[in-house]
């Protein structure tokens, strides 16, 4: 055994070692258990994920079926735990199915924005020069453009389908990710291990994807969590403005839009979907705070 190997036993114990858990990455997430915001956030998210996944079995009624009997008394009752809306549709079922919509569209959009934005940010930060200039200016233009207006124009003119919504959200969120990744790339490209990679002839693509990107995963994961929250808000807003997914598919924002005018008489119709969307976003934001806390503690 070499000198170094023997003496190494005196080195500081791995702070993050948790006995009994096998996988290395799980071990690294263990500190999350100590973070209260993270735990509350995960609880909220899991609640809705399960609700969305199991909607077909959990929802007591089909989401678009009108119960004419309930029209006179739409407030919560034994038959309809959360009451019905102005068309007699069961709110609990609609909320669960609405979760499905949101939790399908949002992650795809965020993943798309992350993938696209990361690639763009990597290129801008690594190559610099005119590539960087062009990319930065374009993303500045996209970022400076008020997104609501953009949504309105594109979706109103070209119709709002799931694809369109995902595309437009990806386009508008990508520059934010690109900016973050660009900043990290600018810093990391000066590192000596990048120089060492160049000296053994690695291609630019390898350096960007294998040497630089893995070291950006901390901030990226936190950002992705944040983006999930904002994307869910965006989807809700689109639905509320009437340019979200077309009816009759339940969409939390759309549910509010249809019913907030009746707030003075039947507040529950709009309050419940509002609470739903708020709780889900709070969950993601709390999780991102928890993740950032762990990152800082290291």
């Amino acid at each position, binding site marked *: *055994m*070499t*000198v*170094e*190997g*023997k*003496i*190494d036993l*005196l*080195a*500081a*114990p*791995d*702070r993050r070692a948790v006995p009994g858990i096998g996988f290395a990455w799980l071990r690294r997430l263990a500190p999350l258990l100590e973070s209260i915001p993270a735990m509350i956030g995960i609880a909220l998210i899991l609640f809705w994920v399960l609700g969305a996944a199991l909607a077909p079995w959990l929802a007591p009624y089909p989401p678009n079926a009108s119960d004419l009997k309930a029209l006179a008394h739409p407030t919560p009752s034994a038959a309809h735990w959360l009451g019905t809306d102005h068309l007699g549709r069961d709110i609990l079922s609609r909320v669960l199915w609405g979760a499905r919509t949101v939790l399908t569209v949002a992650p795809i959009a965020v993943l798309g924005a992350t993938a696209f934005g990361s690639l763009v940010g990597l290129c801008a930060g690594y190559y610099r020069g005119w590539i960087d*200039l062009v990319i930065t200016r374009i993303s500045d233009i996209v970022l400076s453009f008020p997104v609501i207006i953009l949504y309105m124009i594109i979706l109103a003119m070209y119709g709002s389908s799931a694809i369109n919504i995902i595309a437009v959200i990806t386009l508008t969120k990508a520059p934010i990710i690109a900016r973050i990744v660009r900043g990290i790339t600018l810093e990391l490209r000066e*590192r*000596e*291990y990048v*120089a*060492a990679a*160049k*000296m*053994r*002839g*690695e291609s630019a693509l390898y350096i960007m994807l294998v*040497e630089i990107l*893995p*070291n950006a995963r901390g901030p990226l994961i936190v950002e992705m969590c944040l983006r999930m929250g904002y994307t869910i808000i965006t989807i809700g807003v689109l639905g509320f403005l009437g340019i979200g997914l077309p009816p009759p598919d339940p969409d939390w924002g759309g549910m509010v839009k249809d019913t907030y005018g009746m707030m003075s008489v039947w507040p529950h119709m709009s309050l419940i979907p509002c609470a739903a969307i708020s709780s889900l976003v709070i969950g993601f934001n709390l999780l991102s705070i928890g993740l950032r806390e762990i990152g800082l*503690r290291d």
Partner: protein
Amino acid sequence: MTDRETPILEFDGARISFFLRAGEANVIPGLSFAIKPREALGLVGESGCGKSTVALAIMRYLGRAGRLTAGRILFQGRDMAELDAAGLRAVRGRRIAMIYQDPMSSLNPVMTIGRQLMEVPMIHEAIGADEARARALAMLGEVKLPDAAAIFERYPHQLSGGQQQRIVIAMALIARPALLIMDEPTTGLDVTVEAAVLDLVRELRQRHESAILFISHNLGTVAQICDRVGVMYAGELVEEGTVRNVFSAPRHPYTRGLLDCLPTLGRDKHSAALRSIPGQVGSPLARLPGCAFAPRCGFAEPGRCTTAPIAPRELAADHRVQCVRVAELPEWRHPPGDGGDDRGEATGPAALTMRGLGKIYHQSQGVFGGGGRSIAALRDVELVAERGRTLAIVGESGCGKSTLARILSGLQSASAGTVDLDGTAIGDLAIDRRTTALKRRLQMVFQNPDSTLNPSHSVGYAIERALRRLKGLTAAQARRQTGRLLDTVKLSGDFARRRPHQLSGGQKQRVAIARALAGDPEIILADEPVSALDVSVQAAIINLLTEVQAARGATLVFISHDLAVVRYLADSVAVMYLGHVVEFGPAAAIFAPPWHPYTEALLSAVPEPDPDARRDRIVLDGAPPSAAAIQRGCPFATRCPRKIGAICDDTPPPEQLIAGTHRIACHIPAAELVALQEAGPPSARPASTEPVDRVLAS
């Protein structure tokens, strides 16, 4: 100074711990020492020994996690822990002042220098703005900053490192403190700038009568300033005494180890190998019951040394050592110096030849590149590295050595001139245009162990990847070869599975060397490979490099700012200043007169831990001029203490061949230079005629 005088500062069995998630990190188990008024005590130790914690503990600035769990810290006889908030504020900055390691980040970037200075007396002495301003201006004069009125309105980022440190010193002294704590004040400064700052500290010390606690990992700087010195290891004071006693006759094995592994200007590799201290410091989370140094000590006896805490023993006159075996240890001798280097003047075949090498950077301003400046990082560099030998390139920041490294490695291309690698011209071949065979021939070891390895990759992956890219091995072959390479750098095989964050600085550098050796390079380019390491680890890595080089017959191009290391390692040396090679030749010739005036100043500025070696130091004025300024004559003309006249400013100096390959670029004829330098260092310093602006680095 009577013995009954109350010490200005006293640590009485102080025990300091930091309470982390992982447990209690007992950084300082029990520290006792005292500083008398007007005395200067140095605290030396390597990283992790707790010396900075000592400084912050005095000021009661340990943060939320740190606490003094036992013992007392007394300032002027009063227990610091008993002070309330107002009392603490009255002491900080006024009676105890601190000088920090990184002056740039210790100064508020959005506040003018003047205001930051004025704050101190205004807070403590309740004087008005006008009087504070006058005091501040006077202080700027005392720290020898020219053009004080102009600096008053400047912001920190507009000053050079040396100037910033002077500001921090001014801020500390302006309230006339009784105790001055200096925490690594010259680390990070160039050697000549460091010499000037140390000079200033000595002068100010005499004028201000403050006691000084001088903390440093550099034994040489401590020897320059302090009367007494304490050696710290793992939070304990293992030896304490006068500078003379401790450095000329060390008694503790650790002190001896430190001095053994220090390359000094008198040692070279042919006389004796550097002795390193094996192993690394233990963790404060898991302290050993006995002597903390026992696992690494060659004299440790299990039982006597490892069971109970060691009490300090008082040897003759004020010399305390914390070792049970101190009386049984053999006598210590200074490591042998110049032991007849018989490298001879015969030059071997050239492996790497640089001719007329130049590099110009264009700094553009504005979006469309208007109004740019060109910076000449390298000018007309002409050097030869002999095969199988070591060429060292030495210089301070801004001299161009890093640019040279980047050009040789292909990370940048030269603007002019050629680099010839044994027949192949590589000067204009960027790394991505070199063939794999060519890439294999020249590999590099980098400076910063923390960024030389990708934190997301395992050690094994890093080395295997190099093997597969450079030699085209299969995965299985690469794994086997990785094991062999780890062996070469004295790391056990299971290091391959580890990640960089689990390794110490020295271990990371070893991995970096293993990675560089993957392609069996003919030329190893080492860019400040040991500058970021502790002294004891430095020695081990230097030994490793020489060993590897000898075993493989490789050519080593070693870039450094540390003259002592260069003296030890190099066969031939090039001294660079502002992009020019001002002197080049065999190592023995460079370190003996005649010298280029810059080399002369550089050599005299190196702080040595030998208290007898107090020579007259040449202190250079100001800072190197901006590289963007156009120079017509000698680059050193603005600061040269041996400047002979206008010719130095106007005409480029000729390359004078002294003997063999030794050449100096100076207007003063060689014979005259020899005579002048034998007579001694130049006495009169030429007044700096440059207004502050021109002298500032870009």
